[in-house]
């Protein structure tokens, strides 16, 4: 058979660090697929539809770009949609399948978000990055007296894979751990060697640090709002590495501005990338990271390696790791 000319056009979205093409071996696809890498967010749905016109394959990095029905229906050439990670709440799989678009996922490696949750706790309580920046810019010696988390109580909302890893690390750091979620059982807590809190309210009253590890769903949207902030200790810290809308952002900003709680460590936001003029960027009592939870070299290698496999399998007529409609 004569070698076919390149017939597939593939868009790799949201590769902000410009690493996608180094994180996997794409060479086996080079004969069949022409790749275009986008290093910045594409904008609103109309901008995205325009930018992706003519691509029959699109690779998403996690949930950085939403793929609702309207967008899918605006892309008549699209045949293969690959999302990194095992699930993607921003991708309408049903709409894709109705259009005959194959939607696939990839594996992930480890639980790298656990390090961001613990890192945010340590930055809030010990100010390591802050003090390092000060020393490097010629600041004087010690300026802070930290809070040791040993002996403090960590309240985990959610005790799944990530929550239980965070629990283990916190216990090794000498913290007491209590957990609650809408469907958390005493058995699950016992197997994770964590105390089950009788209610969300009890957990919020008791915890010195509250860390969220539930998925975003209609049940968890706005789980932490004005009423919940009022229950927390004035010395408490809130850590959110799960999804922005689990916390009512207006209530969070009000609580932080009024020093109703001591501070917050956030890796996720209602709108990502966080707008340049967002009020959170102005607050002294927050530590902000730019959704780094899943951003490790190990995880990126697994994700992009999976993308290469997915494309190969699709081209061979045997697509793998199909996403199921929600």
């Amino acid at each position, binding site marked *: 058979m004569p070698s076919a000319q390149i017939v597939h056009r593939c868009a790799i979205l949201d590769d902000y660090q410009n690493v996608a093409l180094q994180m996997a071996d794409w060479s086996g696809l080079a004969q069949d697929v022409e790749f275009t890498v986008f290093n910045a967010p594409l904008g609103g749905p109309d901008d995205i539809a325009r930018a992706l016109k003519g691509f029959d394959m699109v690779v998403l990095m996690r949930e950085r770009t939403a793929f609702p029905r309207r967008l899918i229906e605006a892309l008549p050439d699209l045949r293969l949609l690959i999302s990194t990670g095992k699930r993607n709440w921003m991708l309408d799989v049903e709409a894709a399948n109705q259009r005959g678009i194959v939607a696939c996922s990839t594996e992930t490696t480890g639980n790298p978000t656990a390090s961001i949750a613990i890192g945010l706790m340590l930055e809030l309580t010990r100010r390591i990055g802050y003090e390092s920046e000060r020393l490097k810019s010629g600041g004087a010696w010690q300026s802070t007296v930290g809070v040791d988390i040993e002996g403090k109580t960590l309240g985990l909302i959610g005790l799944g894979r990530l929550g239980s890893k965070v629990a283990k690390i916190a216990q090794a*750091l000498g913290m007491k751990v209590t957990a609650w979620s809408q469907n958390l059982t005493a058995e699950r807590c016992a197997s994770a060697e964590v105390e089950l809190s009788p209610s969300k309210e009890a957990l919020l009253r008791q915890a010195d640090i509250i860390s969220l590890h539930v998925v975003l769903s209609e049940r968890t949207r706005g789980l932490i709002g004005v009423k919940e902030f009022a229950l927390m200790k004035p010395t408490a810290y809130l850590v959110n590495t799960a999804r922005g809308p689990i916390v009512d952002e207006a209530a969070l900003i009000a609580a932080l501005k009024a020093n109703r709680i001591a501070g917050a460590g956030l890796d996720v936001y209602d709108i990502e990338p966080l707008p340049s003029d967002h009020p959170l960027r102005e607050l002294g009592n927050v530590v902000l990271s730019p959704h780094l939870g899943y951003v490790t070299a190990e995880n990126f290698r697994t994700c992009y390696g999976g993308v290469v496999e997915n494309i190969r399998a699709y081209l061979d007529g045997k697509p793998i790791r199909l996403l199921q409609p929600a």
Partner: protein
Amino acid sequence: MAKHRCAILDDYQSVALNMADWTKVAGDLDVKVFSAPLGGAEEVAGALKGFAIVCAMRERTPFPRQLIEALPDLRLLITTGMVNRAIDLDAAKARNVVVCGTPSVGNPTTGIAWGLILELTRKIGSENARLKSGALWQSVVGTDVEGLTLGVIGLGKLANRVAEVGKAFRMKVVAWSQNITPERAQAAGVEYAASKEDLLRVSDIVSIHIPLTPKSRGLIGAKELGLMKPSALLINTSRGPIVEEAALLAALRAKRIAGGGFDVYDVEPLPLDHPLRKLDNVVLTPHLGYASQQNYRAYFAGMVGDIRGFLDGKPVRVLTAS
């Protein structure tokens, strides 16, 4: 009765008088708080002339024989914590100076050691500073510590705790020191490295948790840094001179190792023009290991108790040369 003159040294954060209830001794004391380092030995002697009671914060200001002998009015010297390798206890005894320690709380250095590791691998603090200065979004791809090998030098209380956290992160942990036996490593649930060289060769992150002694001074030098993986990180929250600073600077500059996280230095406070402050592949903290509110409360409350005991003729927590 004349009040006793009492100097509180090195209170950089200006918190000493708020961290404890001083009313139990306030009536007997004329207290002066120094919130900046006093300088070299002669300056210290000059500044402390006439004080009967001196309260030191950890080892920030050393009290060698020469200084103790230059302070004829000194009667009570208090250090925070129960060990201070920078005070010459024999010299104090010879001059009839009572030396007392204070309680401490927890293992707050663990949080600094782990915070340095996470800052080096995930850059939370530096990304926070970028976001707050208006940068758009992600600039780094981190390294997950899960699956990497943590090498701890030492296996005391702190090393053990740092190792436990490493295991909770699902790291492999190996340990070595001049005193560790395979049995102790096994009891701690970590792997025993047969030699320093073995530990340095296999570790992705090396963290030092031994005291500074003549045996440990310069334990990590050019040869040792040369054995480490080019991707390895070195963490020192113990004492600066355990690592040869010139060799460390050379290794970091040449990217012989990937980076370092340091809370301790040869000279503290770290001089403003120190070359470490110019390097990109280091995270530097200003000896924060012991600086927690819980620890400070225990330190300063202990200080008040030490002074009360001394004034009542019943000194407590007296430190003597071993």
